[in-house]
């Protein structure tokens, strides 16, 4: 059992500290044939906006070694249609549903959070921000979500903005923080017809190579923030997930690496649900000060 919203009146309790990351798992039932959601702690939905959004133009996927760039523009049919389409699924799911909201203007987020508070099965909100959002706007957005809805609010911090955003959002209404959203990335696009690199694509970067950056951020921030931290970014195995918990994360999100290996979600969940024996993986260092080989 892990409590992701200890300061919230209802709380947000997970039996297992594992969930998919927003944008990778659909709205709850896309993976029903391949993933046993009952083993997970929660489901986080794909991003939802108040009004519908269309798919982005241009190249959607670019592969770079074992990393890849994804560019979708977060298409979705808008809040009301998402609720109409999926509320039955959410009610039926045996685990809490966290709806990821694309944080736009605070008034809109207020409206959205209020609307979601009544929906059965929905146990929390995760807010996603544009990568370059100002501290002021991010704070106003979190406050709006916390004040106008009655659901726990998780803020997903853009990559590279932890220092500036995380402490402030934790102080202004965020019940938990997800560290971090995938980094923004640019990749040359090979135009196969022209046979030359003529354009670039912009998108979010995924890959196991990002995991060492996540651990670096966790190693400094997880124990300095006053709210639970959810680790996200390149987690590729149960050992990775345990390393995140050791460095102070309360839970983990498995991101787009699950597309290659959907079973990763269940595998990680099974590994984390077992009580950790004293001599188990990572146990040596799961103390307050995990064993870094060198302080430098």
């Amino acid at each position, binding site marked *: 059992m892990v409590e992701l919203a200890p300061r919230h009146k209802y709380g947000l309790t997970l039996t297992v500290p594992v969930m998919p990351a927003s944008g*990778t798992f*659909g709205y709850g039932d896309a993976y029903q044939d391949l993933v046993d959601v009952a083993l997970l702690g929660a489901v986080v939905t794909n991003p939802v906006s108040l009004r519908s959004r269309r*798919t982005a133009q241009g190249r959607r996927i670019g592969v770079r070694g074992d*990393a*890849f760039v994804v560019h*979708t523009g977060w*298409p979705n049919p808008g809040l009301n249609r998402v609720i109409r389409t999926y509320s039955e699924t959410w009610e039926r799911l045996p685990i809490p549903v966290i709806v990821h909201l694309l944080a736009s203007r605070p008034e809109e987020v207020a409206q959205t959070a209020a609307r979601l508070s009544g929906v059965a099965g929905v146990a929390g909100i995760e807010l996603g921000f544009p990568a370059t959002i100002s501290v002021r706007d991010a704070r106003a957005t979190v406050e709006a979500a916390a004040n106008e809805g009655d659901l726990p609010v998780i803020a997903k911090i853009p990559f590279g903005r932890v220092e500036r955003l995380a402490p402030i959002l934790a102080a202004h209404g965020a019940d938990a923080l997800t560290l971090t959203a995938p980094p923004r990335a640019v990749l040359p696009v090979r135009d196969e017809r022209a046979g030359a690199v003529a354009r670039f694509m912009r998108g979010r970067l995924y890959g196991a190579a990002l995991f060492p950056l996540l651990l670096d951020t966790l190693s400094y921030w997880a124990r300095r923030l006053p709210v639970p931290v959810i680790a996200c970014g390149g987690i590729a195995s149960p050992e990775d997930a345990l390393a995140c918990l050791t460095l102070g994360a309360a839970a983990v999100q498995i991101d787009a690496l699950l597309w290659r*290996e959907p079973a990763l979600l269940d595998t990680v969940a099974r590994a984390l649900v077992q009580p950790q024996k004293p001599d188990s993986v990572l146990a040596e260092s799961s103390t307050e000060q995990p064993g870094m080989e060198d302080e430098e």
Partner: protein
Amino acid sequence: MVKRQTAILRRARPAPPFWEIHLALEQPPEPGAYVLADLGGPLREPLFPSEIDSAGFVAAVPPGHPALRLLPGAEIDVIGPLGRGFRLNPDGHPLARLLLVAQVGFLPFLQPLFQAAPAVALVVEATTRAQLPAPTRFPPTLELTLVTLDGSAGYLGPLEAEGAVPSGLERAGPRLRELIAWTERACFAFELDRYPALAQCVSEVRIQPQADLAQALVRVPMPCGVGACDACRVATQRGERQACVDGPVFDLLAFRRE
């Protein structure tokens, strides 16, 4: 849909430039449907059947495809079958006449349909003569129409173009329309951006086409295959659809311009 380990049975190159990879699979994908295979990259790759047999299916892939790093005997992990393939006899009664239309690189997607009806016509469009497959590669029952963009062989393409042509050449458009008028079903395999104009051709020839009269296979990246990632969305007349689960085969007329 299931996830399972399968083996590569055989690798050959009977029809260059494509390589054929024979995969063992109990429940192979239907024509136009696919499996997602873990070929060692960070994302799975879709494999479409170019032949289906009792052991599994054959995927024909271009040179440089990641599947070619694997040797016969290699175990690979596939998810599938996935997606909606071609729908050839929706009323239950078998087809008499079938039209297949493809750009040459997409020919393998239609290959499992080469003998799907007593009368099958195939239109292949290539940039130039050298890219066209030898006619001997096709079943003799197939009625073949060749089209090149430079007029170096067969009709002058592109298929949807109109207007005057240099003397000695014949436009492909009228021939395509003839075949569309003739057929009971038409299956297209082109880059997505060709479909609006091809849909236009069909709707000009067939005034009140029934649903799925003309079908179009859409090849876009499909990282998840189950409708989770939204990377494969395509715009249709009825809104956006996911190629991985709503397709990859759509009603061609869904791509008509307003």
